[in-house]
């Protein structure tokens, strides 16, 4: 029997929070006795809960819910980096302001790509080209454990042959997605294959492919 890990974890969470009825608790405790993997999951979740309680007892939880601590651990570096970013920002603004004035007005459209189901011939996303120039934010759900960085390769597919259309390096967003923004002029009507190649040396993450169809 293949068990849904989310359902299994949910029942562990409810067991540790003492939210199960008697029959459910009996079932969980019987499983604790004979299933070592299940026991390990309980042990891990219990340790996580204990760790949180200890942090609360030390008065750290409130602070952690307010700040993003790590960068300020290296205050001099952070201040230097912030100053550099500000300087680059101001310089870029002064130099490119006349050019950017027109681009500011561009509308942005977001297209979300979920993992393709194998055997499904339909494109993951179908997008109708807009008559006005648009910036397109392509967002990819890369699963539960995304790599820190991906090479995003967009190929145009025509009559079985592929031609490179765009290639860029992208990090993941706060939401755990990979996002790139492209100009709509890049995506002329036709079929596209988009590959996300993880840039991690661990070998854990594999490349993921998505498909897109652009209509007129």
């Amino acid at each position, binding site marked *: 029997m293949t068990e849904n*890990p*989310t359902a299994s*974890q*949910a029942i562990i*969470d409810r067991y540790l*929070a003492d*939210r199960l009825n008697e029959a459910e608790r*009996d079932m969980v*405790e*019987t*499983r*604790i*006795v*004979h*299933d*070592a993997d299940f*026991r390990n999951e*309980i*042990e*891990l*979740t*219990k*340790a*996580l*809960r*204990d*760790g*949180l*309680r*200890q*942090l*609360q007892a*030390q008065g*750290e*939880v409130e602070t*952690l*819910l*307010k700040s*993003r*601590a*790590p960068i300020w651990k290296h205050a001099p570096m952070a201040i230097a980096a912030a100053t550099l970013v500000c300087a680059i920002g101001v310089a870029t603004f002064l130099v490119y302001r006349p050019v950017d004035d027109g681009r500011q007005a561009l509308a942005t459209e977001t297209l979300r790509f979920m993992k393709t189901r194998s055997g499904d011939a339909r494109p993951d996303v179908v997008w109708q080209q807009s008559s006005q120039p648009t910036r397109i934010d392509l967002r990819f759900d890369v699963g*539960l*454990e995304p790599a820190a960085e991906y090479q995003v390769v967009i190929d145009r597919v025509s009559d079985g042959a592929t031609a490179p259309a765009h290639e860029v390096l992208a990090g993941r967003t*706060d*939401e*755990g997605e990979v996002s790139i923004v492209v100009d709509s002029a890049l995506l002329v009507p036709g079929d596209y294959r988009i590959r996300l190649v993880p840039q991690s040396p661990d070998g854990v993450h594999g490349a993921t492919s998505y498909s897109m169809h652009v209509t007129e």
Partner: protein
Amino acid sequence: MEGRTPLTVERSPGSVSDVTVEQLRSGVLFLLRNQVREPALAEDLCNEAFRIVLERLGRQPLEDPTKLAAYLTQTVRNLLTADRRKAVRRRTVTGEQAAIDEFPDAESDPTASLQSQLRARAVRQVLQEMPTIRDRQLLVRYYLNDEDMAEICADLGLTEEYFYKVLHRARRRFKLLLDKRYSRTDLR
């Protein structure tokens, strides 16, 4: 039950092998250590549970071997209930002292205190590495405040899928930190 070999102590196959007993013993001890404070009492109750179950199997085989864990678990529950009743009967202190005795002093066990510190350190790192404050709130509200998943999702504007994605990542990271930095015994 047709097709299943009745479970007995002596005969093989179908008897309770050493491996089975050892695996089940780990499970029973885990269950007991989460329910009673003293490790020695947990050991005693575990031994007693196995004595009762093995004696019963010696007299009368279990028709359905898959029910052994359930039978053992029920025996443990009965023993725990009996032990708690016995403890109440034997109690000589009452009132305020009884209330104080209910709460063990965590500082009195240096090993437990150290384990607690190690876990806290790992959790702190997990929280610090979370990309958004909202994800941290999710973890704290769910595991520390025991709030309901649906309520947290509604409050923070999250989908159930995203909720479990964040929890899954946090648990994986926490496990990695513990496995990397500390030996597995630190967890226990």
